């Protein structure tokens, strides 16, 4: 039964990504393509956070922080030592994963608000350190970094490709015993431990995978916007990611994608109307969290299920 659900979600997310891949056929304006690229950046962050929070139950407040770490890892390498972004990208993944692994081990015993507070402090510390190390990182002013590719379209498809790869990876992960362990940890950690699940290992693994994804997203985004700044790691950015996942449907494969595209693309559209996007979205998050945890995806499923067979 569970496998079926995951399969359905996986196929739908592939369909969604296919749709996104087709958009450039209709839209050629580089600004709007850029908007979708940023949505994909958020989708990647959302998917990573969903793995950690939705499937493993660890509510970390640091996804944006790790995107910032990844972006700076790649950015600093190229700014100071002229390292090509092609090397910078895997470096970003490794650095983020390594730091994420350490953080995961450190917060091993913490739950709920303790975990949230610790990861929040960590995120703030990192942001402040990067922001204040003016001589090394140019602080709040940001680093100008070279792009990986010249063409925006290429970036577009790279993002699509990465998202497809990530979704596939997540889907495969969930089908294995690992997926089962993670969800067991989420649902009842003590019970899972009593049944022999290596909680320490799997929690760390979840952290590592999630932060690796964030780091990758950050490095890709840095190359795209050619400007890396501590702004990437603001708690407000994490808030946006959380909003997206909760609205889309936490704990599902397609929820984060849905949430990211919907929230970001429409926030751009709403921007014209006049800055109400965050009001609307935070309100939606409250409503969904309070009354309907399964988010938009859950609502969609219910709608389908009501249809006569």
């Amino acid at each position, binding site marked *: 039964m569970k496998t079926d659900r995951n399969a359905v979600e996986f196929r739908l997310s592939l369909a969604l990504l296919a749709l996104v891949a087709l958009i450039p056929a209709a839209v050629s304006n580089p600004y709007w393509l850029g908007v979708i690229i940023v949505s994909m950046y958020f989708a990647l962050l959302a998917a990573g956070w969903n793995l950690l929070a939705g499937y493993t*139950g660890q509510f970390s407040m640091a996804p944006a922080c790790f995107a910032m770490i990844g972006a700076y890892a790649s950015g600093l390498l190229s700014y100071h030592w002229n390292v090509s972004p092609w090397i910078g990208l895997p470096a970003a993944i490794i650095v983020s994963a390594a730091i994420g692994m350490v953080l995961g081990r450190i917060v091993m015993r913490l739950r709920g608000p303790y975990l949230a507070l*610790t990861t929040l*402090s960590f995120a*703030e510390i990192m942001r*402040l350190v990067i922001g204040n190390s003016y001589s090394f990182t140019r602080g709040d002013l940001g680093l100008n970094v070279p792009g990986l590719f010249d063409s925006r379209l290429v970036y577009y498809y790279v993002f699509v490709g990465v998202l497809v790869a990530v979704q596939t990876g997540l889907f495969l992960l969930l089908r294995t015993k690992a997926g089962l362990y993670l969800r067991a940890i989420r649902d009842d950690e003590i019970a899972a431990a009593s049944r022999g699940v290596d909680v320490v290992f799997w929690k760390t693994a979840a952290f590592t995978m999630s932060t690796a994804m964030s780091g990758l997203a950050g490095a890709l985004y840095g190359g795209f916007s050619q400007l890396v700044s501590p702004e990437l790691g603001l708690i407000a950015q994490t808030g946006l990611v959380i909003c997206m996942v909760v609205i889309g449907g936490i704990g599902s494969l397609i929820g984060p994608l849905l949430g990211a595209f919907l929230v970001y693309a429409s926030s751009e559209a709403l921007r014209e109307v006049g800055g109400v996007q965050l009001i609307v979205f935070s309100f939606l*998050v*409250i409503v969904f969290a309070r009354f309907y*945890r399964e988010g938009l995806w859950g609502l969609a499923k219910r709608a389908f299920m009501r249809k006569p067979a």
Partner: protein
Amino acid sequence: MLNVDLLINGLIIGLFYALMAVGLTLIFGILKVVNFAHGEFYMVGTYTYTLVALKLGVDPWLALPLAAGAGAIVGSLTERMLMRPLYSGYTSWGMLKDEYAVVVTFALSLLLVNLVDKVIGPYSQRGPALIDITRMSLGPIMLSGQKLIATAVAAATIVALALFIRYSFWGRQIQAVAQNRLGASLAGIDTAKASNIVFTLSGALAGLSGALLAPIINASPDVGSFPAIKSYVIVVLGGMGSIVGSIAASLTLGVLEGFGAVYISYDYRDTFGLVILMLVLLVRPQGLFGEKGRDV
């Protein structure tokens, strides 16, 4: 001379931190959740005070209790509408109750900040001082009249709160619920009402501190993030749930930051508190003064 200055200024700032943080401590003690919208309760107080005094021409001394009242209302509403499900009634989050609190209060904080930004405007505004003396010397130090009054009010309020919790009827009810919710309700205590009182108090205190500091820390939509982060640090350091602990932690933090800024690094002074927070949580998750919880 410098050190005396730093010590006294550190204590003063610590007192302000205490006023901000003690409400959060109460919430944690009784509900075992951290309210991520705490900074916004503070912001509500700052704005109420500033706007009522500037736009409606109300005397600042009257605006103070109004600000506290506004904070109280927001606190009470938050508890009633968003927090109730945590302990009475249905929530689709099942075992992840703590995480629900995180998400919902976080979203609430975003909502409030952006509402204010949209409705009132993003400009920062300076709240009127209670006394127009912009500087006076008090022994070895110099400070503004506003700071002096704010310090006095803060100290008085905290003492009053501590006495309330310790000795009054509802204060003791709250202590009971904090120790063991189920047991308290079995003993006939209205736990929902106790929780509501705590949230209301927390909102009032945060609102009051926002108002007192409005002339020093001007009102702007994101003004809440600063007291919020300080409060989280203090609540954990002091032991989530211990009022005395929070006060001690606040004063320590204020002094530490002051000395650290001058002798270690000015740029990184905000990180000291956060680093300490992380270290404490890792070594002693119940904080310096807290009690180990008992999970069933």
